[in-house]
């Protein structure tokens, strides 16, 4: 119906578009402008989960069992809710240890075991080749249907010769795509931005195509959902598809949910897009609701299409092809072409990502460990190219294997049956992966035993019967058992029947897998490296990368030797760059002959792990590192310490925050104390200095008097006068020191009462009138006629005024000295100004003159006349009385000292 050349051109054109998108994605990534770095693209890339099994197979499944197809998508919905918990942990572990595949993850968790990594790889390849075959089958079949003149009903799969089979060319094209965008260079993170961009685009295409065809069937061919359902309900064989109990048992529903939960987490392609290609774990926030929404949408029209197909075709057409057959039968070639492209998207997306993931596993966990064992290769140069070559060969081999499987074996099996066999195979990784993630006691031997037991059970109960279906083994085998031993019958092991094959297989294989893993883990011990890895994995969320990670690498080697190993994978330039980068971060010595420290060894190992897997990286590093084995006791000590430390670390974190706060407070208090201490020392030394000066002159004059008893009275008087003056000054100084000390210690009794400041000012000026006369300084009083009383101790205010007046006289102009005292009322306060016409207080001194023993003027030039305590005492007194004392800010000649006192509250009368 659609000419072959059109289909070919559209298909090739579509793949060309993918190439373009992937190319652009890689270019953008190189330029540092990632297009895939957002949650929506991340969610879309994870939608690679929906393969052609979803696209075509869901309808086929729904046509057989009603909503029995749904658990395959409900399982992921359940898992997605705990993505933030589980997947984030996995992402973190992988990012830290540069783990790039599922096999590597399992190998790393159980002591970087090459054996376990290899086993996981073999199981994955074994389980997934049929799944890849399924996609090729879908491409081939739909291609045939689309171009077949005879119509959809007659589309015998595999009837075309091998060389004319579209599946072969699809496989080769996909191999080319995967090689170009999946294995271009060896990268330590194994991220492929271009490929992810293409996959996200494919997810969009398949969703749109499926929604379009679904809406067309529902609203075009029929009259909405209820119309289809109503018509189906009239036919008994279709009516039973509307409920679950008549078609699929609840037990099957349960097991399918479990199966798809595990597969969704553990399928290599899901691991690749969700873990390895994850750019930022915050994208999980968006993807956690966007991805299930995608699944919901792509499943919305499955039941209508299935019922519609059955209503229109009955049993004439394979239900797996309804999606395509309906537009074909209706004569809508364009819509059919759109459906085909959507199906192509679903199939190619899965094949591309799955083969990349598997090729990484095969090269890193299977081939490299084997190659590295043979000495010749381990010593060769440029192993990086070898790794890439291995991956490319693997990709081609996988696709050809898939094609071969499809040609030989898939005729007899439906899409869903093949898919479920693959799901059940990868589900066997669950105990090792999830157990290893949350149970420290899981050991290498346990994981090994569980995996082997599980996969053997899977092989016996699912794979073997599928061979019977393909006609390779007797048809009766699944029910009657091999050699007629009924207890071993694959569909009723040990006589357990009544379950469908998948539930039966899951039940037994999980029982065997978990059982052996737990039993063997508990029975045996673990090697030191296993214990460390167990702790690293289980405590991943609580534990920042730290020195503890390298604790087991107590080896010695030189930087040069490590560089040699690194060069063979990333080239000399890359190796130098990596080491220089490390040196820049840690300031370590990375000269050729320098000893490499444990951290550097670990760093190089993790770089290599990105390229060849953890197990191989370990083996490679150990070729140049002479390791000193750690004793078990030592390891246990480290681990015990580490786990105790971790247990307390959270509490400690909280405590340390509190402590920090407290210590900041203490520091502040301490600084204050130190300052006070310094001040006290200063004070004591200044006081003694001030005491010494008068004492020196008293002593000098007294000695003169003693040595010269015959001095005449006038001369004698001239010497006695200073002695008396100096003694007075001493007395004053001591009194003031005591006064200040008492004030500061709060030992002064205050006699507070309403005081009229005019009286105090008058008293003070009268008291100092003698002084004014001596210096010939004019005094000017500016007193208001009415003034409210202030609350104060009048004696103390008197003392302050005397001091201020004394200062004013002292500094007033020697020629025409003038001092003005003013009183004024301001908001709730009375202000007293004492103004002189002296030189004024320089700005730099305005603050310090209130410090003890700091006097105005140049103390070196003229001998200070005061004690240097007057102003500090005055300020202390005024402060105690609830006022302020300051010096005016006005520049130029003349200084104004002002103080305020609070107005007394008049009692209401």
């Amino acid at each position, binding site marked *: 119906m659609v000419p072959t050349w059109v289909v070919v051109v559209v298909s090739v054109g579509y793949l060309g578009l993918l190439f373009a998108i992937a190319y652009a994605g890689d270019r953008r990534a190189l330029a540092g402008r990632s297009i895939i770095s957002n949650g929506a693209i991340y969610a879309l890339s994870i939608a690679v989960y929906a393969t052609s099994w979803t696209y075509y197979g869901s309808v086929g499944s729904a046509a057989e069992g009603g909503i029995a197809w749904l658990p395959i998508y409900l399982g992921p*919905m*359940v898992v997605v809710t705990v993505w933030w918990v589980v997947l984030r942990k996995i992402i973190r572990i992988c990012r830290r240890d540069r783990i790039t595949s599922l096999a590597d993850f399992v190998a790393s968790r159980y002591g970087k075991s090459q054996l376990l990594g290899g086993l996981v790889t073999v199981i994955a390849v074994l389980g997934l080749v049929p799944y890849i075959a399924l996609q090729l089958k879908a491409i081939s079949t739909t291609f045939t249907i689309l171009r077949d003149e005879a119509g959809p009903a007659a589309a015998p799969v595999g009837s075309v010769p091998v060389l004319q089979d579209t599946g072969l060319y699809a496989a080769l094209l996909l191999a080319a795509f995967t090689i170009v965008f999946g294995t271009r260079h060896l990268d330590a993170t194994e991220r492929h931005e271009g490929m992810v961009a293409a996959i996200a685009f494919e997810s969009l295409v398949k969703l749109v195509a499926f929604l379009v065809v679904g809406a067309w069937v529902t609203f075009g061919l029929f009259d909405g959902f*209820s119309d289809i*359902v109503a018509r189906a309900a009239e036919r008994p064989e279709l009516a039973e598809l*509307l*409920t679950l109990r008549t078609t699929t048992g609840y037990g099957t529903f349960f097991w399918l*949910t479990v199966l798809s939960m595990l597969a969704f987490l553990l399928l290599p392609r899901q691991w690749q897009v969700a873990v390895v290609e994850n750019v930022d774990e915050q994208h999980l*926030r968006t993807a956690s*609701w966007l991805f299930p*929404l995608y699944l919901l949408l792509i499943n919305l029209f499955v039941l209508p299409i299935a019922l519609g197909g059955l209503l229109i075709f009955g049993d004439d057409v394979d239900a797996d092809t309804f999606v395509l057959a309906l537009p074909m039968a209706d004569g809508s070639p364009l819509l059919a072409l759109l459906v085909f492209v959507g199906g192509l998207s679903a199939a190619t997306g899965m094949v591309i990502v799955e083969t990349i993931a598997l090729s990484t596993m095969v090269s890193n966990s299977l081939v490299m460990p084997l190659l590295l064992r043979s000495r010749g290769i381990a010593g060769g140069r440029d192993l990086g190219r070898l790794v890439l070559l291995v991956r490319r060969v693997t990709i081609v081999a996988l696709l050809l294997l898939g094609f071969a499987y499809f040609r030989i074996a898939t005729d007899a099996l439906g899409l869903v049956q093949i898919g479920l066999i693959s799901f059940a195979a990868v589900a066997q990784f669950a105990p090792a992966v999830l157990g290893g993630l949350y149970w420290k006691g899981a050991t290498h031997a346990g994981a090994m035993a569980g995996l082997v037991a599980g996969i053997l059970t899977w092989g016996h109960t699912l794979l073997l019967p599928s061979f019977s279906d393909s006609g390779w083994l007797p048809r009766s085998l699944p029910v009657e058992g091999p050699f007629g031993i009924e207890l071993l019958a694959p569909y009723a092991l040990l006589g357990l029947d009544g379950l469908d094959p998948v539930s039966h297989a899951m039940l037994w294989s999980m029982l065997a897998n978990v059982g052996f893993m737990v039993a063997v883990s508990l029975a045996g011990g673990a090697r030191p490296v296993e214990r460390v890895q167990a702790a690293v994995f289980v405590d991943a969320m609580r534990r920042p990368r730290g020195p503890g990670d390298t604790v087991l690498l107590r080896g010695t080697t030189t930087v040069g030797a490590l560089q040699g190993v690194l060069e063979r994978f990333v080239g000399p330039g890359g190796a130098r760059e990596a080491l220089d980068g490390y040196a820049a971060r840690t300031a370590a010595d990375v000269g050729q002959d320098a000893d490499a420290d444990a951290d550097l060894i670990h760093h190089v190992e993790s770089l290599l792990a990105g390229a060849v897997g953890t197990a191989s990286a370990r083996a490679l590093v150990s070729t140049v590192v002479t390791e000193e084995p750690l004793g078990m006791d030592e390891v246990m000590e480290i681990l015990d310490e580490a786990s105790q430390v971790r247990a307390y670390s959270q509490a400690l974190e909280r405590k340390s925050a509190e402590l920090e706060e407290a210590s900041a407070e203490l520091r502040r208090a301490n600084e204050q104390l130190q300052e006070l201490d310094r001040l006290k020392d200063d004070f004591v030394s200044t006081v003694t200095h001030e005491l010494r000066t008068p004492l020196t002159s008293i002593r000098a004059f007294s000695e003169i008097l003693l040595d010269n008893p015959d001095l005449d009275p006038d001369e004698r008087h001239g010497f006695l006068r200073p002695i008396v003056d100096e003694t007075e000054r001493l007395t004053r100084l001591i009194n003031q020191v005591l006064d200040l000390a008492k004030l500061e210690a709060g030992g002064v009794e205050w006699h507070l009462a309403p005081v009229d400041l005019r009286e105090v000012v008058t008293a003070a000026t009268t008291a100092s009138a003698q002084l004014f006369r001596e210096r010939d300084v004019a005094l000017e009083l500016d007193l208001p006629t009415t003034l409210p009383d202030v609350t104060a101790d009048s004696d103390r205010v008197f003392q302050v005024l005397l001091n201020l007046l004394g200062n004013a006289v002292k500094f007033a102009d020697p020629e025409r000295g003038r001092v003005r005292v003013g009183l004024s009322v301001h908001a709730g306060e009375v202000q007293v100004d004492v103004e002189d016409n002296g030189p004024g207080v320089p700005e730099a001194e305005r603050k310090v003159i209130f410090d003890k023993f700091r006097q105005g003027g140049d103390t070196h030039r003229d001998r200070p006349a005061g004690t240097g305590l007057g102003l500090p005492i005055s300020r202390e007194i005024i402060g105690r009385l609830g006022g302020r004392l300051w010096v005016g800010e006005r520049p130029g000649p003349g200084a104004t000292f002002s103080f305020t006192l609070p107005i007394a509250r008049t009692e209401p009368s």
Partner: protein
Amino acid sequence: MSGRPTNARLVALAAAAFALFNYPLLAVFDTDALVLGLPLVWVYVLAVWTLLIVLVGLTLRDR
């Protein structure tokens, strides 16, 4: 440490999802009844599904 209640909520949601999608709750809605012309069990599953998407989205929305 605001991650702890989030984690607990998500685990609880997952448990609820698993329970809601399985026997016996599923069986309760698995009848011949039609809602708006659609099979009850189908409507039930889609409704739970939508609810879960909303709840997960709310739990994980950026703060």
